[in-house]
């Protein structure tokens, strides 16, 4: 599903964010990406989401070198990835329903199909019945679940989560991680960036550890 080959990223000014990183995620695999702040986690996620381009090396998603595709094709590559953020990135002047429906509207689904899929997605994250609420009226955990519902609503083959439990207490964190496991069980490839070592260890999945831009650990 995802393959990085000798990927390096150097920012203007000469700072190396990533140095010669290579790894591969199989279809349907679930893995954690860990490391201290500034180790390069965010940069790596940005390269996979084509928010930035690598200086060297290849980023292959679904057998496509997304680091080198034209800007015009970037949106279509992004639709293969459901992205989840620590700060949720929700539209606060739109209802829960509209937030979750956004990827489907962009992809041009018809109204009936949008309604069906949004409800299914909200059902999965346990927010059915709150479609017409505004995100701000919901708790932090619930807001994160809106973000997750939005990420999976168009059934992408891969989920990318950046510190999805960063602001949540351990109990809610475990719930959110449980959701990711459920998606993984139905075949979705999942990559979660997190520095919550104890949680990661408890869950026992493959862990990729970055340190100063280098992949120092790749435990299966």
């Amino acid at each position, binding site marked *: 599903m995802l393959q990085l080959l000798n990927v390096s990223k150097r920012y203007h000014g000469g700072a190396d964010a990533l140095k010669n990183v290579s790894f591969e995620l199989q279809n349907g695999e679930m893995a954690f990406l860990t490391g201290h702040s500034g180790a390069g986690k965010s940069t790596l996620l940005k390269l996979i*989401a084509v*928010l930035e381009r690598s200086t060297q090396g290849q980023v292959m998603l679904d057998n496509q070198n997304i680091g080198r595709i034209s*800007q*015009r094709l*970037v*949106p*279509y590559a*992004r*639709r293969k990835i459901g*992205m989840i953020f620590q700060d949720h*990135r*929700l*539209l606060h002047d739109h209802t829960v329903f509209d937030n979750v429906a*956004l*990827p489907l509207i*962009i*992809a041009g689904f018809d109204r009936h199909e949008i309604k069906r899929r949004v409800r299914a997605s909200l059902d999965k994250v346990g927010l059915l019945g709150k479609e017409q609420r505004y995100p701000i009226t919901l708790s932090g955990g619930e807001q994160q679940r809106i973000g997750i519902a*939005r990420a999976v609503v168009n059934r992408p083959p891969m989920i990318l989560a950046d510190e999805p439990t960063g602001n949540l207490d351990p109990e809610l964190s475990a719930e959110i991680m449980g959701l990711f496991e459920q998606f993984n069980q139905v075949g979705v490839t999942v990559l979660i960036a997190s520095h919550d070592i104890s949680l990661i260890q408890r869950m026992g999945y493959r862990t990729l550890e970055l340190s100063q831009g280098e992949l120092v650990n790749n435990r299966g």
Partner: protein
Amino acid sequence: MMTVAVIAITLSLPSGLLVSINNLHSLSGQIDLNNNISLFLKNNVTLGEADALAESLQADSKIHHALLINKQQALDEFRQYSGFGSAISSLGKNPLPHVIQITPSETFNNPMALESLVNELKQRQNIQLVQMDMGWLERLNGILSIAQRGVSLITILLGFAVLLIVSNTIRLELQNRRDEIDITRLVGATRSFIMRPFIYSGFWYGLLGGIFACLLVNLSVLLIDGPTSSLASLYNSSFSLQLMPLSHALLWILFSILLGIVGSWVVVSRYLSELES
């Protein structure tokens, strides 16, 4: 809404000027040019020859009416009105030529045709001088064509102004919706998907601005029309101001829409290019 008002006012200036010029044009065409052309015949032409010439001119389709004023009549008139009566009597010989006064037919009542008629008359025998004061008409038309050029320039300048107004408004909208744009980009929105609502705003600004500009101009015309008509009636003219023709109004609205779309397109595509780089 402010933007629409500013666009309307901005565009109403050139379109209003154009309407004024069109009205002046139709005024200059409507004026009964007083264009009696005076033909001063040569001194040796007899009354009989002059009569014959007047009759042949009367038969010409380009000429509505030809009136012979013979030299005796002219002298009598002159003596009566000039106050030089005794001086003229002492002259012994009549210094005045026969004159034929011509009123051109309706269809020739425009400067171009009149000029060709004058040239044609000059070719004739027995005619010493063809006189018609159309200098002022030429001058008026000259001024009008300068004004037209001026309006074109103003239109270009104010068109740029409208472009900037729209761009600025769209830029503010972009800033207000920055988060929304970022998020839609993250979930795979194409450039055109993001641009579409802004292009639509540009379109609406242009459409409404254009419509209001035309309304403003026509409203002004209606306000000025009353006094103009009463002024014209003092000159025995039935002249009244014409509103902006529908075709012109549609063109102005189209122009305004174009400016709205181009203005927003430029700003949004530049903004997105910056995000993508």
